[in-house]
């Protein structure tokens, strides 16, 4: 039954759309740059940084997942009310966004085994954010559809049962040091992706980059289910290498696509490191994106370094963890 997945994917687009549109509405009416940057930072830290702690809480109460989903949409809709003031709005949409991501992420990680479902869920957010931030869709349409969609999702979501083992990896045969090492390597890959996933692409088409983000995430998941983890990491590396050897818009877009393709892989493997804590693992991955967003213009890493380190770490984690997976050596 994939209906909850489809609804969560649509809801992800709407939730990120609400946040993007709310921030864009404020930014368009604020003449000074400093407060815009300040409130964007607060939003980023709340929406991404708090996902880890909220993930732990939700892992303890998996039967509160559906209720948390409704709560997240309530917070988001309240956050669209401009009379509350921008600080309150930013806190509300930051918390709502954070809660929704953990709920959706934990649900998709626990309910489905593949990478495609995960790629599908994470992909739609980029499009919603693009539509909202560029004011292509206003706050009100996003909010109305989100309310309807969240009620539908609430009705079809099933109770998740967090397993203590995965059928793909045998965490019991691995010692804790190895598992912890894998978690750190995967989180480091996410951290690097935060610095490299945007590229420095200049284009007049405002929806081109969000669509490439979404395509990359979806493609990563689909490819991983088709080829297996081992060969997907190799394909990602080869495509990234090709993207770095040419100049121009398409080469840049290819590199951005490749950076985003790793997302479903890192999330799924993080989950398999601790299958009993899907919320925590999803949240930790999201938290690792914060430095990339905050210090993107301060710390500039060569894209070659990002590509090589990501490939080595992803392959290494695969060699350690995925001995049971099809096609894996």
């Amino acid at each position, binding site marked *: 039954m994939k209906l909850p997945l489809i609804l969560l994917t649509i809801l992800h687009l709407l939730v990120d759309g609400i946040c993007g549109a709310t921030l864009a509405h404020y930014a368009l009416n604020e003449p000074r740059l400093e407060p815009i940057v300040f409130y964007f930072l607060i939003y980023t830290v709340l929406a991404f940084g708090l996902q880890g702690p909220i993930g732990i809480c939700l892992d303890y109460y998996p039967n509160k997942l559906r209720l948390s989903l409704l709560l997240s949409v309530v917070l988001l809709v309240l956050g669209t009310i401009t009379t509350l003031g921008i600080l309150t709005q930013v806190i509300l949409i930051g918390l709502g966004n954070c809660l929704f991501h953990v709920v959706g992420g934990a649900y998709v990680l626990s309910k489905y085994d593949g990478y495609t479902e995960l790629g599908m869920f994470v992909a739609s957010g980029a499009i919603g954010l693009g539509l909202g931030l560029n004011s292509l869709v206003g706050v009100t349409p996003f909010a109305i559809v989100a309310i309807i969609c969240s009620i539908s999702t609430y009705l079809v979501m099933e109770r998740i049962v967090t397993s203590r083992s995965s059928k793909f990896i045998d965490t019991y045969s691995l010692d804790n040091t190895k598992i912890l090492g894998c978690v750190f390597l995967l989180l480091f890959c996410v951290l690097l992706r935060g610095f490299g996933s945007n590229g420095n692409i200049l284009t007049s088409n405002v929806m081109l980059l969000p669509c490439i983000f979404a395509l990359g995430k979806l493609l990563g998941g689909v490819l991983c289910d088709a080829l297996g983890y*081992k060969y997907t990491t*190799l394909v990602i*590396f080869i495509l990234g*290498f090709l*993207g*770095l*050897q*040419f*100049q*121009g818009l398409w*080469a*840049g877009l290819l*590199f951005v696509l490749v950076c985003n393709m790793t997302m479903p892989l890192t999330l799924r493997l993080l989950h398999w490191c601790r299958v009993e804590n899907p919320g925590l693992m999803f949240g930790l991955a999201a938290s690792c994106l914060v430095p990339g967003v905050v210090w993107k213009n301060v710390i500039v890493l*060569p*894209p*070659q*370094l990002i*590509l*090589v*380190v990501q*490939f*080595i770490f992803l*392959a*290494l984690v695969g*060699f350690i963890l995925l001995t049971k997976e099809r096609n894996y*050596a």
Partner: protein
Amino acid sequence: MHNLDIRQIQYALLTIGIELPIFWVCGYRKLSLLCYFVLANFTSNILLNETLPAYDASLSYWLQLLIGELLVVLLEYTLMRYAINYEKQKLFTVICITNIISLGIGLVMLWFKIFLV
């Protein structure tokens, strides 16, 4: 983003010219393995040369070279693991040896200021 230039290709081919015979001597003689090794070597060298700045004898240059070489060893080992799934320790040692020798020859060439056109 870069355009692949002829000098980078020359450096990569020179490195392959040094490392391939050593790899062959170490017992990896299957043609498909040798082709795969050439591709892995070409990729790693291009990426290293794109990242390294021009030689300036500073500590920062040598540090970057050292980190770059370590990453090259790890990258080549990881890429070769896709083709060779036996005697992993031997593979790692061979990759280390080939890279140390090619780095040594590269440094000697740099010392005598022998540069490619």
